[in-house]
């Protein structure tokens, strides 16, 4: 063991390229806000969004506006790259204040 050769080995990973985007934004008060639903068209996301809408209304948030998922398109379909690339434009166009995105499963 004492005579065993010591080896130097190099780091096998690549340089990470992504910086960090620190966003301090949340949605502490949804009243009067516009919430976008963005869906990958799987795992019953459409049903989830309807229940979420209902829950918000039942808590008195009746003046929340929703942008439904069909505005954005399928984020997991054959043209997902084009759909995802266009999301920022659509969020701006429809003046979204927040986005709920699903479903990872």
């Amino acid at each position, binding site marked *: 063991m004492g005579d065993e050769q010591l080896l*130097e080995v*190099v780091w*096998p*990973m690549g340089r990470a390229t*992504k910086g960090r985007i620190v966003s301090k934004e*949340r949605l502490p008060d949804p009243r009067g806000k516009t919430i976008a639903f963005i869906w990958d068209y799987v795992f019953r996301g459409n049903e*989830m969004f309807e229940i979420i809408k209902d829950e918000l209304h039942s808590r008195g948030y009746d003046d929340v506006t929703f942008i439904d998922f069909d505005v954005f398109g399928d984020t997991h379909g054959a043209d997902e790259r084009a759909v995802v690339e266009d999301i920022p434009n659509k969020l701006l166009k429809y003046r979204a204040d927040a986005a709920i995105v699903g479903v990872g499963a």
Partner: protein
Amino acid sequence: MPAFSIVSTGFMRQAEATRKAMGIPHVWIAEYPGVIPNDSDEIFERKIREDVFPSLLEGFAAPVDDVVDVEVEPVPGSVAFHGTFDQVQDHVVEQLWGDGLPVVPPTPQRVEKFLAFTDRDPDEVLGILHPELREATIRTVAINGVMAGCRPEYLPILVAVAEAIADPHFRLEDAGSTPGWEPLVIVSGPLVGQLDFNTEGGLMRVGRRANATVGRFLRLFMRNVAGFRVPPGGTDKGSIGYSFNVALAENEAAVRELGWTTFGQDRGFDPEDTVVTVQSVVGISPPIYSGGSTALEHLEYITYYATHTPGPWAYTNIKYGQATPLLVMSPSVASGIADDGWSKDDIRQHLFENVRLPARLLERYGRHVEGAEFTFADYVARKVADPLYAESDDPDRLLPLLLAPGHTGIVLAGDPGRNQCRWYANNHEQGPATSRLVRLLPDYSDRLDATGNGDG
């Protein structure tokens, strides 16, 4: 803009790893507890109301931490550890750099031997790889080639493999998906013989250094540079998956004997090129034995297994508009088909016309995969599928699973003394067949001869 994601329990770790890698650590993740396709309507609704929604509300109001830790990583290619052989192995395991097997320690000296087989800048960036968005460079290819046990002279092939998976067409970002597909490297051209790749019996077994280590390299590269890691990592969500594929090498002599084109030529390259193709494999057929004096006798069971290997999962070919399956064919089977006057294109056309399943089988499977059934009528209405898929509403109508004849690859390889084929189903648009030319230094053969290991 604040964003809030909904993710089921089993994918929370992957979601956390992904947001960290993308530099957006503050995205709120609301957890759906459990497995969505397994839950009844009542349980599903209860979980949305009692678990997901409260978490979203919490996220709406949650403060964002001011302090964000920034990890300091080594300079790529720098010495990251000193130790004995055993200490190196332990360190590799701790750092999640390995694949569970002992690695060849990537010393600077070993890496330099690899880099001698290229004149490209070692820091040349071949692409940025998902999910960790790291740079794939010539140097990282060499390092991981060392670790996999490759010989230095394999470097040009390894670079071509890395270039193929870095191509956005390959969709490497989907390699951690639950189907657990495994990439397959196919090598065709002169280097197959020069580097002693196996093209015959035991084709897809470990046993020959070139086949085994080139295949192993790709999986190591996907761990260390792309960032796909099984637990304790969180980014590889292949539910079951399977082990790395050894590289598949084409029996060019058998192809020439029949007067057929090589796989490399089918992929658009010249006969004298060595070509690497990488594609996903999500399912492999049992051995397909076929005999007889006519092509149709051989194609009967090849067609059966081309249909039933992917089975109803093939609805995803239609949904995503992509499928590049591979038929690996013993030269003896190919000879029987060719003797009947058939070409590779004839085989492809026959498969395109006959690989079909009933609509009801495909539509019902969607519920098990995605939590909800679909209909081809809806797919057609949304322009997801060609109108032919909803020409009638007969649930037993047979629908084509292959989208174009030319998408099926055919490689001659395997034991020429046995009448066996196998069907390799690829995973729709994820990992479609992507090819790259293997680029060699002008004096590659001399360098290979100098190693004493090639048939240069």
